[in-house]
């Protein structure tokens, strides 16, 4: 037999698009393309709102105010003297070329560089929290479901309700009081966990005890969220016929749980990982303010206060991108792990 007829290139493309992988590729392409108008509107809204805020980047709260001549010179230097829409068009044009301008607060520093330095801290804390959230959240959820209506279940439920309802900055305060202030007072100032500041330079991968409280604070709500979700979806799966069959076959609990229950009950949990990124981004703003960490979250609050337009816009764009990409990855994962899901 000769080689199978390969058909024209067009036929191959058609065949590819007809296959499941092709559908997926087309879907991803559509989603990525759709990001462009969404990002444009995010930039537009932020640009209008940031510039509408009273005051400007040259105000010196409490300090000596700059003279009008200096303000004018700075406006001209950074193009703030131009009409509003012209500034917007110039900004969007620059963004297309990956030029996000320079900070108005720390003058001369490229916004990309500033954001990058901030990410060093935010990413470490976020990653540590993530590595903590996923196993603890899923683990407690599964255990609670397997031991439904026992004290284990009640403890997990109570903790996850509290975790979902008590705001993260309040959790932070209690950690500071419990782990820093109370030990400090009781040991006469000899021992207390450090509360604020970046970690020491010689720390292992930059990770040291400074991160304990921020990571716990950041992880509290997501653990509760993932735990509750895992519990309810596991309970749902445990009631399915095929699980009963697995038990009836005499499979050991470990095999039933891992092979039959978890495989299906974790599907909804995977979709929750997308919102989890948004929660972590929002959480970083709060946690970094509570613990005085110079990450992107604190940078956002500071640059809003300082009316540092390029930094505000740069941060918003990258937050939006992260959330969108996380959601896209989760949607793809969802399709890959669950063959029942069809793409529109």
């Amino acid at each position, binding site marked *: 037999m000769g080689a199978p007829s390969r058909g024209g290139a067009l036929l191959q493309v058609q065949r590819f698009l007809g296959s499941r992988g092709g559908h997926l590729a087309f879907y991803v392409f559509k989603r990525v393309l759709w990001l462009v108008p969404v990002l444009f509107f*995010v930039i537009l809204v932020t640009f209008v*709102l*940031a510039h509408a805020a009273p005051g400007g980047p040259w105000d010196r709260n409490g300090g000596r105010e700059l003279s009008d001549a200096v303000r004018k010179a700075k406006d001209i230097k950074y193009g703030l003297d131009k009409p509003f829409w012209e500034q917007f068009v110039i900004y969007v044009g620059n963004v297309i070329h990956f030029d996000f301008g320079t900070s108005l607060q720390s003058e001369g520093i490229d916004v990309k560089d500033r954001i990058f330095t901030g990410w060093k801290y935010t990413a470490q804390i976020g990653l540590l929290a993530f590595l903590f959230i996923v196993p603890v959240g899923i683990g407690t959820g599964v255990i609670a479901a397997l031991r439904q209506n026992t004290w284990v279940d009640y403890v997990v439920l109570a903790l996850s309700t509290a975790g979902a309802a008590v*705001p993260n900055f*309040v959790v932070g305060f209690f950690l500071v009081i419990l782990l820093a202030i109370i030990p400090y007072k009781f040991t006469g100032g000899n021992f207390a966990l450090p509360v604020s500041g970046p970690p020491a330079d010689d720390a292992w991968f930059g990770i040291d005890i400074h991160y304990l409280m921020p990571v716990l604070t950041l992880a509290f709500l997501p653990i509760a969220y993932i735990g509750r979700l895992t519990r309810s979806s596991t309970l749902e799966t445990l009631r399915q016929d095929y699980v009963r069959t697995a038990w009836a076959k005499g499979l050991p609990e470990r095999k039933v749980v891992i092979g039959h229950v978890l495989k299906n009950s974790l599907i909804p949990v995977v979709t929750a990982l997308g919102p989890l990124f948004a929660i972590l981004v929002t959480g970083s703003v709060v946690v970094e303010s509570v613990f005085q960490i110079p990450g992107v979250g604190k940078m956002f*609050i500071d640059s*809003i206060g300082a009316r540092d337009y390029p930094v505000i816009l740069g941060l918003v764009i990258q937050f*939006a991108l992260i959330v969108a990409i996380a959601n896209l990855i989760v949607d793809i994962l969802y399709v890959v792990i669950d063959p029942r899901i069809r793409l529109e």
Partner: protein
Amino acid sequence: MAVAVAGAGAPAAIDWEVPEQVGLWSDAWRRFRRNKVAVIGLCLVGILVLDAIASALLSTTGHYLWADPFKQDVNNIFAGSSAAHPFGQDELGRDVFARVLKGAEISMQIGLLTQLIILVIGGLVGLTAGYFGGWVDNLLMRFTDVMYAFPDLLFIIVVVAAMGRSLLSIFVAISVVNWVNLARLIRGQVLQLREKEFVEGARASGSTPLKIILKHLLPNSLGPIIVSLTFGIPQAIFLEAVLSYLGAGLPPPTPSWGVMTHDGYDAISADPVLVIFPAIAIAITMLSFTFIGDGLRDALDPRMRK
């Protein structure tokens, strides 16, 4: 049904036992009452609402529920608990108990009024988008795409910065961000209900769209709407508190729990207790509303009806 034999010899009288008529609301209330945690939450919220109303009414006549929450007493800063000041005094000598009591007023306003605005905007858009589809539906979905790309807290911070730090701008910011979720929920409900037989029947018998929406679609999707709004209350209270904590919300010396945590945390090494009272107040309020929300969800879920 039960067959009762009324005396020997007499013709058997059949006594059809009619089940007690149970309406949606009394049935839901019965199930809600059985959930003890939810009832506790409801009681706590009742106390908070009374506190908020009382302090709002009293402040119009120049009186206070406990003491003047603004009066400074610089000779007694960081004073501990006493009979006159059960929660002590803060960094300016103000009475912490009075400020916590007054703080409920702002939190309740934020929690309840934002949900009212969200109900009006989200309801109108959601019903229109779900029933008629068309450009309203398209616009809603596109708007959602943009909003989902923008983490809530960050967007609210930007809006409040643009409008100035006041109660009004916090109302607007929270409502602008959160109506989308309710509109999407109602849209989904309406899409589901629209094809049901009773709606088709109403349409066939000549009901106008407005009548169908008001008499059939809205009452039938009321359960999820109420639950969503109830969970929206602690969310809004949280947003105000965290905004004020970050220094991006209400300006000092407003006696809001968020502002109090901001000032208290600054003074945490001088007096760690200062941050605890407003923090506990926020936590209890949010927990209470969450309990009520959980209770309502179980009570209003039609699959749980007896």
